[in-house]
């Protein structure tokens, strides 16, 4: 997997964009700006996925992450936005001592990871030297046989087809478990986000809490009396 020509240029453009957007996500004062920078980081990473010939994952990333999860984030930010962060009256980072410790930790982690990647990749290269050259020739021969796209400038790959068949052949049980996980997440978030009034309406609150809240909320007192009947 060695990118050449324009692919290399796009690799550097999108990876630098991804890293800077990620840095700004962590450092932005306004939470909305954080979310927007995270969106641009995710889009840049999905461009890297396209460079890695994983078109399906790139599409899923944009649809699910940017279209679903980030919109959810923006909604929640607007629901709980306190505004003191942008006005500058609140500190956005932890205490300086904690920040120093975690930055030192992260620097050590960077050093360790980069060293491990370099050493490990050298070993991989040594192991796979012949396999890579053989497979590269095979791959270019295979790509010649692929059907041409309508514009004539590229060929239609079978990557998505392979991911789909792999998903249903080897990953069908995890696939079903993932659907159950999503159902649990939906039900759980609905249960978590209920107000006390909604909880009281379906008689799902501890009697002591109901008693306490009923003293300064007439609506809950009314609900309490209906439950008591």
């Amino acid at each position, binding site marked *: *997997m060695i*990118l050449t020509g324009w692919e*290399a240029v796009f*690799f*550097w453009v999108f*990876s630098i964009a991804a*890293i800077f957007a*990620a840095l700004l*996500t*962590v450092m932005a004062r306004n*939470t909305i700006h954080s*979310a927007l920078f*995270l969106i641009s*980081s*995710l889009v840049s*990473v999905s461009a*890297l*996925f396209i460079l*890695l010939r*994983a078109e399906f*994952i790139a599409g*899923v*990333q944009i649809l*699910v*992450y940017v279209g*679903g*999860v980030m919109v*959810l*984030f923006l909604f*929640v930010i607007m*629901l709980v936005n306190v505004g003191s*962060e942008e006005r500058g009256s609140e500190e956005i*980072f*932890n205490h300086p001592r904690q920040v120093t410790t*975690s*930055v030192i*930790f*992260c620097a050590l982690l*960077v050093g360790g*990871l980069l060293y491990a990647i*370099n050493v490990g*990749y050298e070993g991989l290269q040594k192991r*796979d030297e012949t396999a*890579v050259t*053989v*497979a*590269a020739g095979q*791959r270019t021969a295979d790509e010649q046989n692929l059907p041409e796209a309508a514009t004539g400038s590229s060929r239609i790959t079978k990557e998505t087809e*392979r*991911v789909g068949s*792999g*998903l249903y052949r*080897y990953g069908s049980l995890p696939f079903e478990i993932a659907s159950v*996980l999503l159902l649990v*997440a939906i039900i*759980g*978030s609905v*249960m*978590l*986000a209920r107000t006390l009034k909604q909880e009281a309406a379906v008689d799902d609150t501890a009697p002591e809490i109901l008693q306490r809240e009923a003293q300064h909320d007439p609506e809950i007192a009314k609900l309490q009396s209906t439950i008591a009947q």
Partner: protein
Amino acid sequence: MQFLLFNFLSPALGLLFQAATNGRFATAWEKAQHPDLSKFLIIGALLFIIGVAGVLTRRNIIVIFMSIELILNAANLNFIAMSRYLQDTGNVNAVAGQIFAVFVIVVAAAEAAIGLGIVIALYRNKETIWVDEIDILKW
């Protein structure tokens, strides 16, 4: 300013010049023109570290959740790069990395839904999104 210039900048420039004359820059430029697996892994590692730094340093719980999304995304980048590398070493059916990336995205979506539900419940009860003010479990 002058202190910075003479004590830090000029030795750095000297080192850069030395590296350039030694031909180290030429090989680095050569390598940069042909990014391979290790470059993708390095980008993934950097994104991961930035996410970890965000989780450790920020006070806003929503930004902490966003940093967790960054971490998961970095893991996805590594999965996809490795899957492509395995395909290029002749393992034609090596799509396990991409399948795993789909599951990571699913889990990230579920985590975001639950986490933001917790944030809403917490904000309703404690009126705060600063993690250092949420200490009801501490005694």
